[in-house]
């Protein structure tokens, strides 16, 4: 099962993990991306996420399909939030259910690492004294 969503509302960690798990799964691995309170020592007030939704959904679907194909996992859930997020808010959830743990861990790691490179989603960090579009080094 593949479940991909981009949402403008708080994400539900428990239901993502629950949906990634079924009777054939021996384990579920998850990655929860959360808004951190500081970047390079500067206090973060909030993050503003935007996305190119039609393309982002397509790129997420490619990641999920590749993860299923490569690691023979049973289920993958990828939910990403957009809009204004505060410190401590969950920005992304990836949950992977598989027969054995190695596949679940590896596919989960692949999914978040690839998402950060290919999926057209951007965040602006808003500090107390300024704001900047994040441009991570590859």
């Amino acid at each position, binding site marked *: 099962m593949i479940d991909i969503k981009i949402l403008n509302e708080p994400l539900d960690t428990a239901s993502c993990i629950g949906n990634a798990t079924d009777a054939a799964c021996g384990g579920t691995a998850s990655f929860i991306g959360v808004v951190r309170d500081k970047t390079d020592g500067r206090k973060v007030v909030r993050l503003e996420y935007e996305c190119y939704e039609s*393309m982002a959904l397509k790129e997420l679907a490619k990641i999920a399909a590749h993860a299923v194909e490569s690691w023979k996992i049973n289920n993958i859930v990828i939910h990403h939030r957009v809009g204004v997020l505060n410190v401590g808010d969950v920005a992304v959830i990836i949950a992977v259910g598989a027969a054995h743990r190695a596949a679940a861990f590896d596919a989960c790691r692949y999914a978040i690492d690839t998402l950060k490179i290919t999926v057209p989603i*951007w965040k602006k960090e808003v500090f107390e004294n300024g704001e900047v579009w994040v441009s991570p080094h590859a």
Partner: protein
Amino acid sequence: MDINILAFGIVKEFFGGPSIALELQGRLTVAGLKEKLEATYPDLKRLRTYMVAVNDEYAEDELVIRPEDEIAIIPPVSGG
């Protein structure tokens, strides 16, 4: 014939809005489009890198743009 070019992230600031219209004259490749845009919006050259998406897919430089295509400028992504 004008084509509409979508902007995201910092590129919206370069363009002064979420999209611009560009007149499509003759044969234009993705590489040609980048050259045209960089002439008008030199800030694009300050980006570490950026991509052009055509119809929701990352496009190669050689791809020829058609009037009905949806074009977007993709600065370095920062999801997650």
